[in-house]
């Protein structure tokens, strides 16, 4: 009941209870699996990401899945499975970084905007709505092409897309929490706005932040794949799922399915993992996630 350890155990037990527990656990398992793969890539991948089984001067046919190459090879003789394993590092890095940056900007802005209201709130809401009006991929592409291709720049351009999502959800919740009697009571005890916001409003909107994080990360994976597809994250032959998807696309018509199918599957699975986490917590805290 008491102590930090007890709280942690309680929080972990809470994950496995209540509505949406199955979704949460499945999502966490998927994301944890990909995170493990990313961390342990040197030990899991049978080949290096840019290690080729043939001399670079020789053009070869992509090889279908075999014992040596469980997911086949690409036209340059890269092992598809190894590239997916190594690629997960870039994908997770860009997605996590972008969601964290979007959260770091969107949450405080939504908190302040909703708490104080007034002209500041109107101005911020207008700016956020204008950003929100762009289709995510278009906005991310525009920002990324201005910043230039790199994983960090890709993360920045993705975060721009998701700041309004955090902002809107947090602001909406703050508007509701702000009217609570316990906020009034806190003010009657002479707490400054900072304490009321961080000590009472923020903890009560925390579940929303968790849910939005899951949803933003889900969307960010798909958008990241889009950026990678256009070569705005890493440059070939560095591994990134979206980029491999585009390179593999050339040969689809020749019946070479494995160079696109497996990276696509990885993208889908990871997105599913984050979506399950988000929706699972949404179920738990009865947070509506229509955006």
């Amino acid at each position, binding site marked *: 009941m008491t102590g930090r350890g007890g709280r942690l155990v309680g929080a972990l037990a809470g994950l496995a209870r209540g509505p949406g527990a199955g979704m949460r656990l499945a999502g966490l398992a998927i994301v944890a699996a990909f995170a493990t793969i990313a961390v342990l890539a040197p030990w899991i991948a049978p080949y290096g990401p840019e290690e080729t089984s043939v001399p670079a001067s020789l053009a070869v046919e992509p090889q279908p899945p075999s014992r040596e190459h469980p997911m086949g090879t690409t036209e340059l003789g890269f092992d598809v499975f190894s590239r997916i394993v190594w690629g997960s590092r870039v994908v997770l890095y860009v997605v996590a970084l972008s969601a964290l940056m979007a959260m770091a900007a969107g949450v405080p802005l939504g908190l302040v905007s909703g708490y104080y209201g007034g002209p500041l709130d109107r101005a911020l809401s207008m700016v956020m709505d204008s950003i929100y009006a762009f289709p995510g991929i278009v906005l991310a592409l525009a920002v990324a092409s201005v910043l230039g291709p790199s994983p960090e720049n890709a993360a920045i351009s993705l975060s721009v897309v998701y700041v309004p999502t955090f902002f809107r959800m947090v602001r909406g919740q703050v508007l509701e929490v702000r009217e609570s009697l316990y906020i009034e009571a806190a003010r*009657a*005890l002479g*707490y*400054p706005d900072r304490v009321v916001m961080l000590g009472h409003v923020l903890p009560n909107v925390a579940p929303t932040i968790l849910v939005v994080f899951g949803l933003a990360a889900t969307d960010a994976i798909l958008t990241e794949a889009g950026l990678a597809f256009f070569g705005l994250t890493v440059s070939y032959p560095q591994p990134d799922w979206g980029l491999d998807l585009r390179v593999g696309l050339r040969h689809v018509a020749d019946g070479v399915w494995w160079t696109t199918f497996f990276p696509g599957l990885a993208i889908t699975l990871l997105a599913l993992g984050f979506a399950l986490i988000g929706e699972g917590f949404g179920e738990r805290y009865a947070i509506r996630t229509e955006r």
Partner: protein
Amino acid sequence: MAEPILSIEDLRVYYDTLLGPVRAVDGVTLEVPRGEWVSIVGESGSGKSTLAYAIMRLIPPPGRIAGGRIVFEGTDLTSLSGEEMRRVRGRRIGMVFQDPMASLDPVRRVGDQIGDVYLEHGVASDRREARRLAGEALEMVGLPASWVDRYPHQLSGGQRQRVLIAAAVALKPSLLIADEPTTALDVIVQDKIMDLIEDLKRELRMTVVLITHDIALAAERSTRIAVMYAGKLVEYGPVDAVVEDPLHPYTRGLIESAPDLWGEKRLRGIPGYPPDLRRPPSGCRFHPRCPLAVERCRSEEPRPLRLEGGRLVACHRALEGR
């Protein structure tokens, strides 16, 4: 009358609406002597809660203090900056709210919520000390100190109200404002909470201002009763005088509409409804519902009359036949 701890002078609180200002409190003058228990009684919409919120300067927008002074321990609260007023709240004036079920933050332990008071007003230097003091505050209101680790959902309504009182009196304020603190509770618990407030008042030498619609409760606990109607103070005086010899017909109506325990009393309601405060009635605001109303009541607003014995009444016909 002892020196007043709180003196409200011609206080006006308006809520601005599209159809013009609602005059929720309209020129109230009231002195609360130190060490007493003053109950402010009235119907819903009489302005009694607004008055309490005004003292704390916590009127929610679009409400505003449109005029008058609130002098507390020699300082006009209406002239303080936001930061100065913040330091008065919780430290020198404590406030307890109507709905204990909703007044505690659901996601924070009660010990942390009480402890914040000590931290934010610089009494405790760290969390540990704040927690220890919170435990002592819990004991002061008759709860075990070990309950600092409980969450609000683990407590009953009465226990929550005790926690809220503990937070409100944690820094030993000289004035405690209680806004219908027992309305949401059952009568047995209500009585115990009132006992608690009485005990704390004595121990901490506080002055109490109780906002209530229940004149029987007010009669039982207070030293003075103030009766409000439609944003105006209509009668004020020592409890015995007001209850046994009410001067204002509205006060009389309130007393006659309160049931007694034996059911022997014939209850008489007050016909009609409180007025729309955007367009209050001319003259005396009570005249459309008053059994004694005459032509003068329709045209001329009665000024508050100060009488001997610290009484005050605002009625043209109060002194007839005396």
